[in-house]
C-alpha cells in the first residue's frame, strides 16, 4: 500500500469527481480514501469575496438611496426644499463593501479553521495565574491614582477632571460589585437595582436637609453638628434602609423566575422613581433636593475658615481637598463591598447563593431555606447600592429622580454581564471600560479635524452607538463576559478555575 502522503498531493492535482484507487490493507478493510484537498484555489476565494462585497455595496446603496439620499430641508419661510446626499450614500455603500470584503477574506473565509477549546480558555488560565498579583496591583493603582493624576496634569486644580472621573468610575465599580451579589452569585436577574441607589441617595438627602433632625442635634450636640456629621451618620442608615427595601422587593418576587423576575424588578425600579417624582411634599418632586451639606473630614469641614480642614492640618486651602477625600471615601466603600463579598462567598451563605444559582431544587433537598437565602442576597446587594446612593448624594449635593432612570440599572447590569457574572475583577474591568471608555469618547477632539469629520462633528453624540457596538462585540466573542470562569471558594490541593461551560447562569 504505497500511496503518496496526503500532504504531498499538490492542490488541484486530483480531478474532482474521480475516486482515487484504494489499496486494501492486510486487515481487509479498505483504507480511507484520501480526500481531495478542501481548500479551493486562491483566485476563486478572492474573486467571490470581491463579487460578494460589490453586490452588498450596491444593495446598500440602493437601500439607502431613498432613506439617506434625499433630505427635506426648510429654506426660510418658503416651501420645503429637497437636498441630495448621494455622496453620503456612496460613503455608506463603500463602508459596507470594504467591511464585507475584509470579513470575507478573514473571519468568513471558507476552510478557515475555527479554534475550539475545551475547559478554561487561555485567557482564563492567564487570569487565574495573574489573579493573586492582579488584585493588589489594581488596589495599589486605585490608591495612587489621584496622586498620579496630580503629578501628570501638573497641579491640584488641573487634576480635578481626572479625579472626578476616578470617583465616577469607582461609583460604578461599587454598584457593579453590589449587583454582582444578586445577579452573578445568586443568579437572580434584577433590572431595578437603581431603586436601591435611589433609596440610599434620598435617605441621606432627606435626613441631612431635614430641619427637625437638625434642630434635634443642634439642641443636644451643638449647632453645626448635623451639617458636619450628617454623611457619616446617614451612611449606615442609607444602607440599612436600602437593605430593608431589598427585602420588601424580595418577598413578592421569590416565586418568580427568569423573565418574570426581571419584569417585576424593572417595575419596582420604576415605582420608586415615580413615587419620588409624585410625592412632592416629601421629595420636592422633579425639582429634586438641593443644598445637601458637603462631606466633612470626619466632622472637619472642607472650607477656608480657621476651623476648616486646610487650616487645621496646615495646608493652603484648595477646593480639591474635598474632591480627593471623596475619591478615597468611594474607594474605601468599594473596597468594603469587595471584601465583604469575598468573605461572604467563603461562608455558607455565599456558597448557598451559588448553589441556588446552580440548582434550586437540590438546595431545598439539602435543607437550605431558599426564601431566606434569596432575601439575604437581595438585601446584601441592596445595602451596597444604598451606600453608593448616599455617596452619590453627598458628592453631587443634589438629588432628583432624573438620576435614577432605568438607563442606570441597564448600565450597571451591563457592567456585571460584560465583566462576567460572579467575577469581581471582571466587573471592575468592565466598569472601567464602559464608564471610563464612554467618558473618553467625549475627548476625541482630534476627530474634529478638517480632514476627518470637520468641526461640526460631536463625538460624544455617538457614545451610545459605540457602547452598543462594543456590547454586541463582547457578547459575540466572549458570551460569558470578560472573565467567564469561576474560582472555587475552597480547595484541597490546587485552585482550578471552573470553565464557564459548567457554571450555570441562574434561572432568574
Amino acid at each position, binding site marked *: 500500500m504505497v500511496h503518496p502522503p496526503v500532504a504531498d498531493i499538490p492542490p488541484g492535482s486530483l480531478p474532482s469527481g474521480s475516486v482515487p484507487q484504494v489499496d486494501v490493507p492486510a486487515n481487509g478493510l479498505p483504507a480511507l480514501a484520501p480526500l481531495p484537498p478542501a481548500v479551493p484555489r486562491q483566485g476563486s476565494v478572492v474573486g467571490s469575496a470581491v463579487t460578494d462585497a460589490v453586490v452588498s455595496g450596491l444593495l446598500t446603496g440602493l437601500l439607502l438611496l431613498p432613506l439617506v439620499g434625499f433630505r427635506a430641508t426648510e429654506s426660510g419661510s418658503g416651501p420645503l426644499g429637497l437636498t441630495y446626499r448621494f455622496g453620503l450614500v456612496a460613503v455608506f455603500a463603500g463602508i459596507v463593501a470594504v467591511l464585507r470584503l475584509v470579513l470575507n477574506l478573514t473571519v468568513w473565509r471558507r476552510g478557515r479553521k475555527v479554534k475550539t477549546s475545551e475547559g478554561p480558555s487561555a485567557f482564563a488560565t492567564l487570569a487565574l495565574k495573574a489573579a493573586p498579583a492582579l488584585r493588589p496591583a489594581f488596589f495599589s493603582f486605585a490608591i495612587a491614582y489621584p496622586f498620579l493624576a496630580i503629578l501628570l496634569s501638573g497641579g491640584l486644580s488641573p487634576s480635578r477632571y481626572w479625579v472626578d472621573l476616578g470617583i465616577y468610575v469607582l461609583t460604578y465599580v461599587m454598584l457593579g460589585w453590589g449587583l454582582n451579589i444578586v445577579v452573578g452569585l445568586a443568579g437572580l436577574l434584577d433590572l431595578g437595582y437603581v431603586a436601591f441607589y435611589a433609596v440610599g441617595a434620598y435617605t441621606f438627602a432627606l435626613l441631612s436637609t431635614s430641619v427637625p433632625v437638625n434642630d434635634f442635634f443642634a439642641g443636644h450636640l451643638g449647632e453645626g453638628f448635623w451639617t458636619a456629621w450628617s454623611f457619616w451618620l446617614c451612611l449606615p442608615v442609607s444602607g440599612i434602609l436600602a437593605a430593608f427595601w431589598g427585602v420588601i422587593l424580595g418577598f413578592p418576587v421569590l416565586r418568580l423566575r427568569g423573565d418574570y423576575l426581571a419584569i417585576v424588578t424593572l417595575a419596582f425600579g420604576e415605582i420608586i422613581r415615580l413615587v419620588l417624582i409624585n410625592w412632592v411634599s416629601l421629595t420636592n418632586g422633579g425639582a429634586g433636593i438641593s443644598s445637601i451639606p458637603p462631606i466633612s473630614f470626619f466632622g472637619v469641614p472642607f472650607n477656608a475658615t480657621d476651623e476648616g480642614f486646610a487650616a487645621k492640618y496646615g495646608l493652603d486651602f484648595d477646593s480639591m481637598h474635598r474632591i480627593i477625600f471623596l475619591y478615597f471615601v468611594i474607594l474605601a466603600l468599594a473596597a468594603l463591598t469587595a471584601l465583604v463579598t469575598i468573605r461572604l462567598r467563603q461562608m455558607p451563605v455565599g456558597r448557598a447563593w451559588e448553589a441556588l444559582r446552580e440548582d434550586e431544587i437540590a438546595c431545598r433537598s439539602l435543607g437550605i431555606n431558599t426564601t431566606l437565602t434569596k432575601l439575604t442576597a437581595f438585601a446584601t446587594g441592596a445595602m451596597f447600592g444604598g451606600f453608593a446612593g448616599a455617596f452619590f448624594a453627598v458628592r453631587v449635593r443634589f438629588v432628583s429622580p432624573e438620576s435614577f432612570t432605568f438607563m442606570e440599572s441597564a448600565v450597571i447590569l451591563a457592567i456585571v454581564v460584560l465583566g462576567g457574572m460572579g467575577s469581581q475583577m471582571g466587573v471592575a474591568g468592565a466598569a472601567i471600560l464602559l464608564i471610563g471608555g464612554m467618558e473618553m469618547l467625549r475627548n476625541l477632539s482630534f476627530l474634529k479635524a478638517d480632514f476627518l469629520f470637520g468641526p461640526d462633528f460631536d463625538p460624544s453624540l455617538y457614545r451610545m452607538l459605540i457602547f452598543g457596538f462594543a456590547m454586541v462585540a463582547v457578547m459575540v466573542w466572549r458570551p460569558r463576559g470578560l472573565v467567564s470562569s469561576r474560582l472555587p471558594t*475552597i480547595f484541597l490541593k490546587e485552585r482550578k478555575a471552573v470553565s464557564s461551560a459548567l457554571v450555570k447562569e441562574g434561572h432568574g
Partner: protein
Amino acid sequence: MASLDPVAGARAPILAVDHLSMRFGGLIAVNDVSFVAARGEVTAVIGPNGAGKTTVFNCITGFYKPSAGRLALFHGGAATPDELDAVTASGLSWGRTGAGALYLLERLPDHKVASWARVARTFQNIRLFSGMTVLENLLVAQHMSLTSAGLLNPAALLNLPSWKRQQKGAMDKALYWLDQIGLMERADDPAGDLPYGDQRRLEIARAMCTNPVLLCLDEPAAGLNPRESAALNELLLSIRRDHDTSILLIEHDMSVVMEISDHVVVLEYGCKIADGTPQEVRTDPKVIASYLGVEEDEAAVVEAEVGA
C-alpha cells in the same frame, strides 16, 4: 394502627406511611399506599414505570403535598400509637415522644423535611451543583450545621478561631465522604466534569453530609455498569452498617434490590401490590404478573417457565 405493626421483623419503624394518596387533577398517581420502613434497614420501592414510586418519594421529601395520608418519621425510636395520634390531632408538624421525636412530613415544607426531620434524598436525574467543585458540593450540603449560629454569623464574617474550628469539622466530614466514595483525587474538579457513576456516588455522599436519619435514593443504579453497580451496593451497605441511617430506595436494577434490600414494597398503578422480604416478593404471583405483563392466573405458568 395496623401500619405500625412491625412488618419487617422485630425492628422498630423509622417511617410509617399511612394511607398515602396523591392526585394530580383527575389522575390518581398514588392510591392509598401504606407501608413501614424499619430503622437500620434498606427498604426498596419497586414497580413498573409510572407506578408512582417517584411520587411517593416526592411526598416523603416534601416536594409534593400529598392529597391525603400521613407520613410519620421517628427520631430516636418509634412513637407509641397514642403519641402519634396526639401529634396528628394537635395540628403541629412535630412533637416530642418518649423515645425521641416524631415528624409529620406531609406538614413540613421541603427544606424543613431535610433540615428538621433529617430526610435526605437524591434525584433520578442527578442534581449536582455542576459549576462548583466536588468539595464545595459536600460543603454546601453541611449548610444547616454550619449556619446553626445564624446565616450571617459574625464569627464567620470575621473568620474567628471558633468559626475556623467549625469549618475544619465540616472539611473533615467532606474529606471522610470523599474517601468513602473514592473521589479524593478529584476534590478540586468541578462536579459537572465527573463521569456519570462518580456523579451518582457524589450525590449520595452529598446527601449523607446532611446527617440524615433516612436516606431516600431515587434509582441510584440507573445508568451504571455492573462494576459501578457493585461499588454502589458496597457504598450503600457501608452506609447502613457504619452510620445510623436507614435507606429507602427506588430501583429497577433487580441485582441491587435483591442483594442489599431487607424489605421490598411493590407498587403498580399507584397501589401497593406486595410488601415483604425480597424472597417473598420475588415469588409473589402478583409481582411476577405485573413485571412480566400477564394475567394473574397465567402467572404460575410463567413462574414455572422463568424458574423464579
